[in-house]
């Protein structure tokens, strides 16, 4: 198509192309490098020595590897909670800890296997997206113990750490109904899968327990396999705005980072005390800016740190850590936060409901 009349020019173009490819390759490597360096295995800090363990190599029975979800440590939520459990295990039990963070969906299995190959006796995947990777690794490495958070993997050497999210959601649903003056409350789910539907089911049941006529507006942000609903605050804010517009005065977001958008919508919708937002997983009152704090009624707590630490402890003490382990209200695996003091006036009612759930008098549904 294009005739070049200048051979020298062509050579120059070629050399420029080579240079460009080299430059791009270098940049690409740099980008990968920065990710993998932050996620490469690191032994736990001095705490290991402090606890009296001198075995620095990850070969002992009590060497534990944790693979975080893509966001990794520093998300101030799920992954940080798992990391806190691991740190506690390193400090109190002298566990040799290794950590890894995937850079995309493609390398989960490799990272799990990588921690196995380093000699870790237990490898824990944080998040239900590790389901396939852990299933595969458990079959290939029968002598290693695995653990997965938020999902059930049916294999003899896998501990499935699941939470009774519906029980915690029941309590915040009851809190929403007790605080609502309009008789309409909202629920925003990040992704419409069975896990998030548990939150919805518990929330709705808890609200109806207080006020059988309450209207619960339900929206989901995305559908599996599209998980963008957990990281799209713009859509979260838009949905929350339309729910407030439709009369809701309390909105519970089980939507990861998208929930931060829903909190913003609360501030646009009304004055503190008139409209509320409920957080999820960790105490989100502590995560938001001071202007938004008066809107955070409570948060449904999912104590991943407790689950992580307990599982590592069982494993390191030679116990059988495998099987499905449910962390529910009876072991304080789930709960609600009280920071800000906005639920102090209804705490007695909530604790009464909690006692009824623990006693089995109230059975919270797991599907809406």
């Amino acid at each position, binding site marked *: 198509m294009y005739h070049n009349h200048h051979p020298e*020019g062509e050579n120059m173009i070629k050399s420029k*192309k080579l240079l460009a490819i080299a430059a791009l390759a270098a940049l*690409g490597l740099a980008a990968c490098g920065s990710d993998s360096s932050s996620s490469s295995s690191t032994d736990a800090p001095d705490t290991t020595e402090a606890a009296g363990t001198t075995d620095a190599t990850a070969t002992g029975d009590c060497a534990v590897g944790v693979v975080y979800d893509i966001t990794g440590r520093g998300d101030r939520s799920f992954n940080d909670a798992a990391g806190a459990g691991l740190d506690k295990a390193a400090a109190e039990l002298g566990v040799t800890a290794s950590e890894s963070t995937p850079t995309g969906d493609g390398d989960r299995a490799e990272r799990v296997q990588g921690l196995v190959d380093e000699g870790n006796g237990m490898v824990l995947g944080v998040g239900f997206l590790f389901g396939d990777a852990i299933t595969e690794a458990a079959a290939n490495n029968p002598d290693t113990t695995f653990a997965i958070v938020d999902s059930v993997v049916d294999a003899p050497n896998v501990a499935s750490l699941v939470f009774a999210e519906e029980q915690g959601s029941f309590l915040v649903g009851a809190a929403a109904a007790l605080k609502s003056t309009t008789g309409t409350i909202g629920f925003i789910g990040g992704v419409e899968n069975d896990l998030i539907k548990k939150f919805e089911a518990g929330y709705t049941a808890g609200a109806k327990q207080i006020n059988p006529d309450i209207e619960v507006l339900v929206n989901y942000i995305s559908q599996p396999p599209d998980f963008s609903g957990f*990281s799209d605050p713009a859509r979260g804010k*838009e949905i929350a705005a*339309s729910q407030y517009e439709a009369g809701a005065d309390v909105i519970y977001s089980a939507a990861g980072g998208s929930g*931060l958008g829903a909190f913003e919508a609360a501030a646009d919708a009304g004055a503190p005390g008139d409209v509320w937002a409920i957080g999820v997983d960790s105490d989100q009152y502590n995560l938001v*800016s001071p202007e938004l704090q008066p809107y955070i009624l409570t948060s449904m707590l999912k104590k991943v740190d407790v689950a992580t630490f307990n599982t590592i402890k069982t494993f390191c003490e030679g116990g059988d850590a495998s099987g499905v382990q449910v962390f529910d209200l009876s072991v304080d695996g789930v709960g609600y936060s009280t920071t800000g003091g906005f639920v102090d006036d209804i705490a007695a009612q909530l604790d009464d409901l909690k006692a009824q759930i623990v006693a089995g008098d109230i059975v919270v549904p797991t599907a809406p």
Partner: protein
Amino acid sequence: MTATIDAAPIETADRPSFLHSARFRMLAIVVIGIGVMSAARLIADNPDITSSGTFGAGLRTAAPIALAGLAGLVAERSGTVNIGIEGMMVMGTIFAGWWGWEFGPWMALVGGIVGGMLAALLMSLATTTFGVNHIVAGVAINLIAPGIARFMASELFVGVQGGSVTSSPGNSGSIGAFTVPFLSGGDLFGWQSPDILGKLEDTGWFMIADISGLAKGLTTAVTWDVVLTIALFFGISYLLWHMRLGLRLRFAGERPSAADSLGVSVHKMRWIGMAISGGLAGMGGAVLVLFSNRYLENQVSGRGFLGLATMIFGNWMPAGTAIGAGLFGFAQGITLRTGPGDLVRTLLLAAAIALILLVVWMLVQRNYAPAGTVTVFAVVALWSYFAAQSPNNQLVFVTPYVVTLIAVSIGAQRLRPPAEEGIPWFKGMQ
């Protein structure tokens, strides 16, 4: 069409017939479209389908996608296929999150533009100066940008109250919003003016309420960055078609060798085009950051690619790109309202009514064969409306993409991209 051309010189030499002009056809389509939506609203008894809230959600959803589309348009008009818009938006979000937190919302906008521009200049170095394949370079940008964003976030936000490796601490202050007085009840020097459109919308009258809803949605609580987005569409149109620089930019995309022979520096034009493109894409990222008041990892989530789709739908023209983005924004906007399932059903009914009208028109024109095909579609749409009492949520969420797909496949019949976009050009090439 042919009738217009034949008739024009004879009958209406000094007074062109408005009834046969493209403008009239556009107007007719818009009026019929509103009528169809209004009828669907009344039959399905779902006022939210054309409410000001829904149109407002559509506008806010459309704005970042529209900016991505405009970014693609400027790049491609000047000869570079910019598949790296997604990455440039990511760079825009991280810079906007950073500057918005440090210096306030307006600097978030500037930061977004700067971040996008930096990524665009890197890509321009590869494509324009080194002649790297444009697709390869764009994909590289899309891969590098999230890595850079993660690195910057870990350096800037970790350890700050409210910040983390995936999130900025939040902007210091809001950019502010604007509501038009009298039309939508905006404040006028502290005095609350009457909300005329709101009152008309509440009447529920055929067509009047729908037009009022549309107008009120587009004039209520519009943030200044969205106002700027709309202004930029006019600005970029003016630049490309009414200014010398714009002519040269398009020249570099249509006939670079001819441009070169006339003394236009093709490389300079393509660098400028990419700089503008990156700035617009980065601003799209900043609009996202301003709306949710913070940077959050992965918040762009494919909007750059959607922008490219609206650009193709819009035939590389600003007006078309804006319509494409508006269409997608509306379709996604309804999925963000309460009761999205019922809204999608109402949309199906509107589609059925439109198709039935099309069949009637075709029968009048005696186009029997295509009328048969369209009848099948009309029946399917009508059946879906009655069958899906509470539609599957998967169906609801796929709606914006199906609407875009249908619109692009209808629109793609008469597309004309810039002639020599995507082809590396060097001095001496013909």
